[in-house]
C-alpha cells in the first residue's frame, strides 16, 4: 500500500531544509523497500515547526516537526509511516491547538492539498464559487462581493465590490484584472503562502472578477523575490488552461479569461497600484496622478480592477458560501477574516487567520508565544514599513481597521513584526527614512528629498546636535511628507517615524515630560 507523506514546498520551509528532508525521506523509504508517495504541499503556517512532515493514516494526518535530515532515519525506525510516536510527534494535525483555534476561510486549503493538483483543488471545494458565478449576471456577482463587506487586503481597505462596480459600469472593448502580488512589506508573507500553497484559489478569484466586470485578460504582477511562487502559479495556470477553467470558453460558458504572470523587478513602490500599472506597461514605476482612477483608466488606458492577492483569493469562498456567510465574521466595518502574519522576534512565528477583532496581545502571546529571545516585547510594527510602531500600552487594541485608525496606526496587510527591549527606536525611525529614500520613485519632492533630509535630522538628534530644534524639524518634515506626497510611500513614512518618537521619546533623548513642552 502506498503511504502519502506531505513535505512542504513553501519557501520558508525550504529555507530551513525542506528540500533535503524530502530527498532523505525518499531515499530512506527506498532503502527500506517502503512504498511512499511524497506530496509537496503548502505550509500549514506553523513556521517554527518547519520542516513539518505529515503522514496520512487511518485516523487522519499525523504531524512531526521540526524535522531535520538527521531525524529521518529515526522517524522510519519509530514507524512514523503508521503515525507512531516519536520525539518530534505533534499528534493529529487537525488537533494542534494553534491551528484548531483559527478561522481559516481564505487559507482553507493551504497546507492540506497538493498546490498544483487541480483534481485535489476540486476535491476540496475548489471552483464551486466560479460555477455559482457563471449562473449570475455581472451585477449580481459584484453585489455579492459588496454585500460580503470584503475590503482590500493590500492595506488600503477600500471596499472591493465598489471598485469592481466602477469597472463594471465602464464601456470598453477591453478591460483588465490585475493582481497586485508585489508583497513588499516586511513582516508579510500571506500572499506568498497562497501563491505557493493554493494558487488555484487566486486563479479562481481572478476568473470570477473577470466574469463579473467583463474583463478577458488578467495579469499577476509578482515580485521577483518570489521565484517559487512563479513556478507554482505557472504550473497551476497551465493546468487550469488544459482543463477549460481558463481560456476562451470557460467551462463551456462562452466567456473568455486569460491569465499571465509578470515578474516585478525589486521596486517597493510598484506595490502602489498606479506605479504597478506603469511597470506592467514596461516603464519606470513612477506613481501616476489620480484621477483618473485605475478603475476608469488603468492598464494601457483601459478600465482595470487592481486587487491584492488575498482580496482576490477570498472571492471564491464568498461566491461559494454567500455574502452573509462571510459578513458574519468580524467586527464593526471590518467584515470577514484577516490572515495575520506573525514575524520578527517571536517564538512561534506563522500564519494566523482569524475574524477581525482579536487583540494584538492575544496574537503576540497566545499565538506568538512571546519573544524568541525571551526578553520583553517592547514594540510591534503592524502593517509593514509604513505602519506605526505600537508600545505595550496599546497591545489590547483589537485588529480592526477603524480601531487602528483611532490610534494613528494601520492594519495594512496584516503583518505584525515584534521587537524585544534591545531595539533602538531612533534607529528604527532613521531606517524608515532610509527605506523611503532607497525606494522613492522620485516623482514628488517631499518623498524624494524629505526622506534623505529626514535621515540627516535623525542623525543630528541622536548625536545631540541642535536637539530641540531638530525634534521640531522632524515633526515639520513629517507634516510636509504626510500632506504633500503623491502616494503612501512618502505619505506614510511619518507613521513609523512619529510613532517611534511619540511612544519611545527616551530613545531620542527626550523625556516624556519634555515631549509635551517641545510639541508646543
Amino acid at each position, binding site marked *: 500500500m502506498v503511504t502519502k507523506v506531505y513535505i512542504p514546498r513553501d*519557501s*520558508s520551509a*525550504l*529555507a*530551513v531544509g525542506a528540500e533535503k528532508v524530502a530527498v532523505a525521506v525518499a531515499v530512506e523509504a527506498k532503502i527500506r523497500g517502503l512504498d511512499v508517495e511524497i506530496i509537496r504541499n503548502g505550509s500549514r503556517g506553523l*513556521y*517554527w515547526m*518547519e520542516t513539518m512532515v505529515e503522514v496520512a493514516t487511518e485516523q487522519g494526518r499525523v504531524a512531526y516537526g521540526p524535522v531535520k535530515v538527521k531525524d529521518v532515519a529515526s522517524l522510519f525506525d519509530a514507524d512514523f509511516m503508521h503515525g507512531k510516536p516519536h520525539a518530534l510527534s505533534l499528534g493529529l494535525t487537525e488537533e494542534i491547538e494553534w491551528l484548531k483555534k483559527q478561522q481559516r476561510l481564505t487559507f482553507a486549503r493551504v497546507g492540506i492539498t497538493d498546490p498544483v493538483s487541480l483534481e485535489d483543488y476540486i476535491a476540496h471545494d475548489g471552483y464551486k464559487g466560479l460555477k455559482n458565478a457563471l449562473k449570475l449576471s455581472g451585477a449580481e456577482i459584484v453585489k455579492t462581493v459588496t454585500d460580503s463587506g470584503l475590503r482590500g487586503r493590500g492595506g488600503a481597505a477600500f471596499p472591493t465590490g465598489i471598485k469592481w462596480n466602477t469597472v463594471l459600469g465602464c464601456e470598453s472593448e477591453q478591460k483588465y484584472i490585475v493582481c497586485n502580488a508585489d*508583497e*513588499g*512589506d*516586511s*513582516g*508579510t*508573507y500571506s*500572499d*506568498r503562502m497562497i501563491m505557493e500553497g493554493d494558487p488555484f484559489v487566486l486563479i479562481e478569484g481572478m476568473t470570477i472578477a473577470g466574469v463579473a466586470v467583463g474583463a478577458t485578460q488578467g495579469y499577476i504582477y509578482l515580485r*521577483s*523575490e*518570489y*521565484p517559487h511562487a512563479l513556478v507554482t502559479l505557472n504550473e497551476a495556470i497551465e493546468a487550469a488552461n488544459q482543463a477549460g477553467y481558463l481560456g476562451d470558453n470557460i467551462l463551456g460558458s462562452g466567456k473568455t479569461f486569460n491569465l499571465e504572470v*509578470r*515578474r*516585478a*523587478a*525589486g*521596486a*517597493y513602490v510598484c506595490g502602489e497600484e498606479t506605479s504597478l500599472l506603469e*511597470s*506592467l*506597461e*514596461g*516603464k*519606470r*514605476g513612477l506613481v501616476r496622478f489620480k484621477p483618473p482612477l485605475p478603475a476608469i483608466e488603468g492598464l*494601457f488606458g483601459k478600465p482595470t480592477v487592481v486587487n491584492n492577492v488575498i482580496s482576490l483569493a477570498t472571492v471564491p469562498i464568498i461566491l461559494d458560501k454567500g455574502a452573509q456567510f462571510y459578513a458574519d465574521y468580524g467586527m464593526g466595518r471590518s467584515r470577514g477574516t484577516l490572515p495575520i*502574519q*506573525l*514575524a*520578527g*522576534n*517571536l517564538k512561534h*512565528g*506563522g*500564519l494566523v487567520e482569524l475574524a477581525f477583532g482579536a487583540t494584538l496581545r492575544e496574537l503576540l502571546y497566545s499565538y506568538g508565544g512571546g519573544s*524568541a529571545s525571551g526578553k520583553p516585547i517592547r514594540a510591534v*510594527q503592524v502593517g509593514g*514599513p509604513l505602519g506605526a510602531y505600537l508600545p505595550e500600552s496599546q497591545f489590547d487594541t483589537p485588529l480592526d481597521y477603524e480601531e487602528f485608525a483611532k490610534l494613528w496606526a494601520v492594519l495594512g496587510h496584516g*503583518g505584525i*513584526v*515584534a*521587537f*524585544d527591549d534591545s*531595539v533602538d527606536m531612533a534607529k*528604527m525611525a532613521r*531606517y524608515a527614512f532610509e*527605506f523611503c529614500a*532607497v*525606494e522613492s*520613485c522620485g516623482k514628488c519632492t517631499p518623498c524624494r528629498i524629505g526622506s534623505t533630509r529626514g535621515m540627516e535630522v535623525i542623525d543630528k538628534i541622536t548625536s545631540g546636535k541642535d536637539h530641540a530644534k531638530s525634534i521640531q524639524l522632524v515633526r515639520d518634515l513629517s507634516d510636509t511628507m504626510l500632506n504633500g506626497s503623491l502616494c503612501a510611500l512618502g505619505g506614510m513614512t511619518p507613521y513609523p517615524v512619529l510613532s517611534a518618537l511619540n511612544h519611545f521619546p527616551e530613545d531620542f533623548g527626550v523625556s516624556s515630560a519634555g515631549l509635551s513642552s517641545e510639541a508646543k
Partner: protein
Amino acid sequence: MSDLQTTHEISAAVIDALIAKHRQQPGALLPLLHAIQDAVGYVPEYCYASISKALSLSVAEVHGVVTFYHHFRTHKPGRHIMQICRAESCQAMGSEVLEAHAKSCLNVDYHQTTADGAITLEPVYCMGNCALSPTVVIDDEIYGRVSPAELDALITEAKVSEVKA
C-alpha cells in the same frame, strides 16, 4: 581578449533571439530585461540600442527602466550572489550583526564583489520569510534563522562548490 570577444558575441546572439521572442508582447520591456538577465547574468549596456530599436523606445528610456529597478544589474556580478535581508523583521532578529559579519569576512561593502570574483554582496528588502528571520539568499537558495556561524558555512559551501566544478 579573444575569449571575452567570443562571450560578447554569444551574448549578443542570445539577446537578439530574446528580443525577437518578446517584442510583440504588450508591455514587453520588463519581461525582455528579465529574460536577458536570466540568460547572461546582467543587462549589458551594449544591448540598449537593439532593444530601443525593436520596442520603438529611446536609448534613454531603456536606460531609465534598467536603472530604476533594483533587480536589474548593469555589470557582471560575481560567480555567486549573496543577499542579506535588511528589512524590519530581520533587524528584529539580528540581521545587522550578520551584515557586519558578512562585510568583514568578505571584505566588501554592499553592491561589491570579492577580490577573487566569487561573491557579490547585495542588500534585499524582504523575502517573505519573516517568520524565520534573519534571512540570507545565495543564488537561488533561501536560508532562514541564519547565525553568523551558519553564514560562514554558506560562504565556504559556495566556494567549495566552485572547486568541485
